[in-house]
């Protein structure tokens, strides 16, 4: 089938107004929020699960790939088409289908924006816990695909801990429903397995999520330090004390100064690091823990520990954190954010290593991260127009991630592997590990769905791969 024929069929399926194919219309969909790029062949906007299934079947017939896309805020190139395939966007599948207050569940379509769900259920005193900093824009479909986290997922858990059921169009074009309002069902936990699979096993068309009750009391503390080490040591000690804050976020000196200039959150310009600690729970509990946290921070050399007096002050402290990446954007034409994870006890040495990397490669690195779970986000500043800088940036990023792995950590805590880090997967997994994952990939996705992601490319030819599939699907594009 020629691509023109594909376009005609897509238009027949969805209506011409829901298919984009002119180069100027496609440009918007060449990027996500990472540094990667790729032009799709067409962008389509289905409105039902059946249409999504028909799209996947059409892709099979036409031997073109399909790539699901939410808001395109992903940081690993997950929603970029690498081979001029069809990008499926969910802006027309953005309804909250059900709010079940008695069971504390919501059933949503994948295009629902994360924050919109929390807003819609706020009147019941409930919210959707995963809160990526991009929550004003990113979709729940994207959250499920990436198993996204956020500042408050330290205590509440990441997306997979909040999804109890999904409807999916498998890479084979079949529609399936796993789980439901109850995560414990008979059979394998395919819901959990699909969550975080980055759109490489199926396209999620409906999601059942948990809703969480708002806590009675919240305390937001800001500890100010002269050095990053003091802040990092406080994190280690807070964890060891057995306190689980709902959020534990750190900004280094460079970041906090930049953020301060942009948002005037009240971070002292001459400090070396700030630690943002949020505690939630019973009033009594929060007060006790706030006192403990203050003690830990002061013992570790904090200059000062501030506490938000009211919601306005709290919002201001958070504004700095939530807009940090936007602020970093002012420092250099581009920045490249890493997402490595280390055991929490190893944060201080990891920060020292990142400082060395910065010197070694001659690049400025700003650190801002989810300290409570050891999820580092060093942002490497560079100029995309300078090929040498880009090369050094990518090398510096890989260097940091290799270090994280050497400490028993991971190359990604929440942004996903995508097309950005797939070449680094062998740092974590050997050939057999990857082969087993590959086999499980092929069981649901013979190849049209989001190809050349997650796994190191080029994919080696293997015999066993699609043995469990019906013969007509044992094909690789």
């Amino acid at each position: 089938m020629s691509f023109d024929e594909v376009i005609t069929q897509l238009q027949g399926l969805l209506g011409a107004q829901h298919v984009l194919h002119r180069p100027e219309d496609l440009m918007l969909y060449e990027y996500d929020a990472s540094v990667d790029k790729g032009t799709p062949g067409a962008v389509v906007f289905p409105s039902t699960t059946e249409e999504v299934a028909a799209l996947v079947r059409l892709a099979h017939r036409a031997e073109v790939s399909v790539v699901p896309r939410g808001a395109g805020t992903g940081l690993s190139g997950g929603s970029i088409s690498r081979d001029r395939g069809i990008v499926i966007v969910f802006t027309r599948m953005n309804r909250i289908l059900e709010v079940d207050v008695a069971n504390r569940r919501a059933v949503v379509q994948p295009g629902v924006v994360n924050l919109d769900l929390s807003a819609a259920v706020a009147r019941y005193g409930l919210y959707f816990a995963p809160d990526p900093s991009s929550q004003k824009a990113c979709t729940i479909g994207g959250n499920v695909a990436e198993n996204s986290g956020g500042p408050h997922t330290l205590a509440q858990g990441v997306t997979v801990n909040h999804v109890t059921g999904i409807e999916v169009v498998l890479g084979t074009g079949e529609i399936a429903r796993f789980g439901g309002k109850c995560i414990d069902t008979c059979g394998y936990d395919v819901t959990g397995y699909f969550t975080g699979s980055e759109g490489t096993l199926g396209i999620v068309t409906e999601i059942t999520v948990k809703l969480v009750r708002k806590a009675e009391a919240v305390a937001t503390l800001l500890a100010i330090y002269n050095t990053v080490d003091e802040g990092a040591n406080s994190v280690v000690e807070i964890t060891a004390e057995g306190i689980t804050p709902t959020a534990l976020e750190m900004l280094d000196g460079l970041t906090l100064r930049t953020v301060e200039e942009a948002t005037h959150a009240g971070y002292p310009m001459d400090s070396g690091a700030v630690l943002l600690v949020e505690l939630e729970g019973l009033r009594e509990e929060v007060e006790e823990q706030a006192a403990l946290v203050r003690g830990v921070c002061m013992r570790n050399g904090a200059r000062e520990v501030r506490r938000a007096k009211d919601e306005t002050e709290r919002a201001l402290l958070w504004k700095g954190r939530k807009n940090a990446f936007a602020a970093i954007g002012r420092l250099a034409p581009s920045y490249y954010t890493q997402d490595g994870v280390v055991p929490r006890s190893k944060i201080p040495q990891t920060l020292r290593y990142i400082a060395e990397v910065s010197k070694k490669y001659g690049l400025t690195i700003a650190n801002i991260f989810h300290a409570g779970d050891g999820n580092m986000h060093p942002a490497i500043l560079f100029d995309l127009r300078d090929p040498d800088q880009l090369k050094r940036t990518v090398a510096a990023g890989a260097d940091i991630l290799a270090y994280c792995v050497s400490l028993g950590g991971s190359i990604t805590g929440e942004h996903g592997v995508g097309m950005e880090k797939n070449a680094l997967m062998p740092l974590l997994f050997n050939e057999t590990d990857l082969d087993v994952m590959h086999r499980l990939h092929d069981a649901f996705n013979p190849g049209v769905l989001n190809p050349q992601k997650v796994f190191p490319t080029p994919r080696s030819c293997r015999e066993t791969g699609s043995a469990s599939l019906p013969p007509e699907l044992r094909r690789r594009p």
Partner: protein
Amino acid sequence: MNDQGVVSGLEAELTGILGNEHVMPCQSNLVIDGIHTQLCVEPATAQEVADVLRVANDRKLTVIPAGGFTHQGYGNVPPRADLVLRTTRLSGIVYYDAGDLTIGVRAGTRLADVQNAVAEHRQVFAVEAARASRATVGGALATASHGPRKHSTGGVREFCVGLEFVTGDGQIAKAGGRVVKNVAGYDLMKLLIGSHGTLGIITSANFRLMPAARQTATFMAEFRTIGEAVAFRERVVKSPLSPISLELISPFAEGVSGQSPKAWTVAIKAGGSDAVLARYRGELGEDLSRELRDANEAALWSSVVEFPATMLQLNQRAMLLDVHMPAASLEPALTEAEKAATAHGFIFSAVGRAAVASLTLALSPLPGDPPSVTQYVNALSAIRAACPADGAVIVRNCPSEVKKHIEPWGSAREVESMRRVKRTLDPNDVLNRGRFLP
């Protein structure tokens, strides 16, 4: 070749891998639904597990993975059982990073050993199962065991952060890692947890630990009816309190420490300072009948975890069911379940997580009046009918002759997808053949 020839050829091959002393005739107590196994092997490394499974895979044998043999009541009667693979020698803590609240253990490690090791550091390993001094970590993962802590920590799927396992065709694979947050690669932990030994043999696993509360207290409230108990649960769930456990205990839940035979009891375990505990008293108010501390408190919670084992010990012919459902269905479902059990000649009892609505139901035969197979079958189908489709009613134990007449798992949905997973990881159907999905 006759059966004897198969066994001796096989024995020689296995001995070559494991040495004489770790290939042995099966002990007579390792019987599953009346099916005896000839041989038992005890590998000590993941590599040995892989070597054994390759042999089984080549010969298309069936292998029964086993830990402490405490949760083998699940599933269909095995059509064949050639080998029991015990994880006894795959034991020990691989690493324990108390500062990071993470631990890695080998699959054959006893739950109690891990629980005790971390308790010394005032931390909690939240995997719970009956007979913790025999049950193993691998078995608890495979059966997705849970206890009262599930209320606050969620099931083991929520805090198992990494896994190593061997596929049915003998490949050693791992997923996840050691750190508490990680999205690299597929989350195969989710597939293996609750797979009842049908997708792979788990050889080791890594977990997030929880800090232990400095002190705890347990508040008991007793009600005449399930309706009142569930109304109380709703009050707790809507209050600002966030207890460690929120447990429902029915009348006749024998063996549960201090349980009154007539009442529906809600037990709330809380942790925190004196001020926090005082707040619980204040919020829960006059509904509270008792407060347990120290030894009494510990006795209650261990008897709650032991409930399924106790009920079976009291009556070998009891039928035990694991039920899961959306929280709002609990009252109507349990009301109907109790009626159905009584109507078919059983004594009904239930213990489990009131708010997550995951419970164990026990149907115990009346003394002196053993129910017929039909009575078991009818009681089960009436209970299934009373429980919502969004959930599960899984038979945990029942007499072997009953098993042949029931679906122990209920009706699984999306069986074709499940089969795809199974065929991918265990192409020759070596692992627990016939015991899981239809």
